[in-house]
């Protein structure tokens, strides 16, 4: 009984923080309450993980359920949200001090960010495919005004494209959900229970294959849109580059992977009904397309926030490659990759936000000699790039290696070769852009001096440390990863 209360904390904590900000506005106290809420979420996730590692599942209220996979996703959401909201305290404080935002806009920001965290938590806690869809569409709604926060031409354009493309795209997944429901009703399901994970998994082999083929295709395309997989990625670079930095961190670090989580859940059911070949083909195509698009557009990229956005498409491509492989090792590597990418990207986007407020430009060429001018900030950003490039000691090294090994073992050597060919191109492009920004003499622009450029570095350092620690030792995460991979992976 007590343990099922754990499932309400991830929803209640951010909801209360949102309420507090809505009532009291953006102040010191509510800003820090906004950091406490994800910290509580993270604590509840650790508790849930402790219970579910043994293979048990927690349920609450008939609509919420947590198993090892849910617990792991909650850990990711909590960890990234702590970094992002912590960095957000300084970000918004500085914007307010510089007069670039108003008290009303700051209040709206505080409320929407917490609502965003709560809807993502709801998405992974939902026991039901329908409710998962509702939660994911709700993330689009609460983030729309965050993307269009600045209300200038570029950000309103990005917000419009984001809402229309994501709502339209994710509607496709709802059509898939309707098809799953039709198949489940035919297999004897009734009402809400027919869309529950437990029912769908137990009756997967009775679901009509022809309908499931239609459903799985629609679901991969629909949730793939939200996960930023090519060729449905068009909204992503615009939205990620226009949103305030901490929001970009959350969108890139967690929102994409929460959408991918939906694909993983549905893949289990589709594979049981259809055999693994069908979703594998779909995911492989999406993986290679995403990597190719990211490689092509990163080479000539001139805006560092867009550069980070395309790097997210790359990493979702790698995640899709691992999911296509589908073995237990591959899924464990995918989950570790999701966590490492979330932390690394949170650090980088928040760092990019700091760079933007120090230099007032988002053009790569205009930011030079960051290392001599702002060493702490430059070090955090540079180390984040190193993490993203998949270099040790950061955990993305281990997870990329894991994905490559598992895929090769599953006979997908050609796909691995193609994928890592693209990764190499991306490596070169990111390294070159990074060097332009960090090295060299100070830029010609006279930097609008910020009171203390080293302020707000703490959350970035914590994120980097966590990412590096994960690369060295998995510790207690190992059994959880194993349990979660068992739920999705083929034996």
């Amino acid at each position, binding site marked *: 009984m007590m343990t099922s209360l754990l499932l309400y904390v991830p929803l209640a904590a951010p909801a209360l923080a949102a309420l507090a900000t809505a009532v009291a506005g953006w102040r010191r106290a509510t800003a820090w309450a906004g950091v406490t809420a994800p910290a509580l979420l993270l604590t509840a996730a650790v508790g849930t993980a402790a219970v579910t590692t043994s293979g048990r599942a927690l349920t609450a209220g008939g*609509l919420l359920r947590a198993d090892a996979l849910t617990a792991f996703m909650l850990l990711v959401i909590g960890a990234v949200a702590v970094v992002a909201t912590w960095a957000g305290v300084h970000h918004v404080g500085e914007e307010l001090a510089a007069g670039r935002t108003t008290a009303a806009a700051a209040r709206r920001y505080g409320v929407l960010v917490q609502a965003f965290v709560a809807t993502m938590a709801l998405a992974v806690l939902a026991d*039901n495919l*329908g*409710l998962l*869809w*509702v939660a994911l*569409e*709700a993330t*689009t*709604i609460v983030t*729309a*005004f965050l993307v*269009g926060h600045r*209300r*200038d*031409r*570029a950000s*309103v*354009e*990005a*917000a*419009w*494209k984001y*809402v*229309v493309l994501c*709502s*339209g795209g994710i*509607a496709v997944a*709802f*059509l898939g*959900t*309707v*098809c799953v*429901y*039709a*198949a489940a*009703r*035919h297999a004897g399901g009734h*009402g*809400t229970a*027919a*869309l529950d994970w437990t029912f769908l998994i137990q009756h997967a082999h009775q679901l*009509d294959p*022809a*309908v499931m*083929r*239609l459903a799985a295709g629609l679901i991969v395309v629909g949730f793939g849109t939200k996960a930023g997989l090519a060729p449905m990625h068009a909204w992503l*670079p*615009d939205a990620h*580059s*226009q949103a305030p930095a901490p929001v970009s961190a959350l969108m890139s670090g967690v929102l994409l992977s929460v959408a991918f989580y939906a694909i993983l859940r549905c893949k289990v059911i589709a594979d049981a009904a259809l055999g693994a070949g069908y979703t594998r083909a779909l995911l492989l195509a999406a993986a290679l397309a995403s990597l190719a698009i990211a490689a092509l*557009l990163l080479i*000539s*990229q*001139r805006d560092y926030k*867009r550069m980070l956005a395309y790097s997210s498409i790359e990493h979702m491509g790698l995640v899709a490659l691992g999911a296509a492989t589908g073995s237990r090792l591959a899924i464990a590597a995918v989950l570790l990759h999701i966590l490492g990418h979330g932390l690394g990207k949170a650090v980088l986007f928040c760092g990019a936000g700091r760079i933007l407020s120090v230099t007032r430009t988002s053009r790569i060429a205009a930011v030079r000699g960051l290392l001599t001018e702002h060493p702490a900030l430059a070090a955090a950003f540079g180390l984040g790039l190193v993490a993203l490039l998949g270099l040790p000691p950061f955990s993305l090294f281990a997870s990329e290696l894991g994905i490559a090994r598992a895929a090769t073992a599953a006979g997908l050597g050609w796909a691995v070769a193609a994928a890592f060919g693209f990764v190499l191109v991306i490596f070169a492009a990111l390294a070159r852009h990074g060097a332009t920004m960090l090295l060299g003499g100070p830029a010609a622009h006279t930097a609008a001096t910020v009171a203390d450029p080293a302020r707000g570095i703490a959350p970035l350092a914590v994120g980097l440390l966590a990412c590096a620690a994960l690369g060295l030792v998995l510790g207690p995460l190992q059994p959880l990863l194993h349990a979660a991979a068992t739920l999705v992976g083929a034996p």
Partner: protein
Amino acid sequence: MNQTALHQTLFVQSLDLACGVFLLTAVGVLWRRELSALVRLLAVQGAALAAIAGLLAVHESSTELAVVAAVVAGLKAVALPRLLRRALDRSASESVLRNHLSGSPAPASTPAALEDKPRRYEACPPPCRRDDRLADRTAVPQQALRRETRPLVNVAASLLAAAALTLLAYAAARPLVALAPSPVTRAAPVGLAVVLIGFFLLATRRRAVSQIVGVLLVDNGIAAVAFLTTAGVPLIVELGVSLDLLLAVLVMQVLTTRLQAVFGGTDLDELRELRDS
């Protein structure tokens, strides 16, 4: 013919009628160009969708479905069209205000004035772009702002595309119909056809309001597929989806106003601030 058989025939006939209206309104959206006509058609389509749900509720004597039918009627036949109309009125009144401020009288609505003017911002060097656009905007009559002036695909081709998409829908929906063949599920491809027409609208229309209508068509189509194949998704999901949709349209309405404010129009061709290199 006995009583039940008569009821059955009546039910199937009225259901087919409602489905026919449902599909025709979608085709009508492709045919009409006045944005206000699109909103009216959307309201009729919402009513047809509610009728489908209501007929099924009576047929299966299900209270849950009756509740859903009432929600659908309130949301899709009344609330959403009203929201869209407000977005339209606001953009129209704003353009009148602009005309007034710039000193030019509101031009008469001659047919020639309704013709779309060639507008080439690209030919103009950057410094003059904004002024050019402003002058251009004040010259566009109010009525033109309320029309889909230049769809990427013309009306005749759009109607042909609708026919092709309907055929495609019938082919794609075969597994769904085969799952449980009955007069009701046999109508399900109509829903799928409306989904496809909605996506076609999203891809080929350039006014913000037309795109919202496209999203709503997609959603109506999915709801129709759900009603016809499974008598609707579970109530809690249906309520969640309806709430999401209402909020999404509210968000889009607000964004339309902001687009109007920063771009001086809701022509989505203006959206080219963001692109790579």
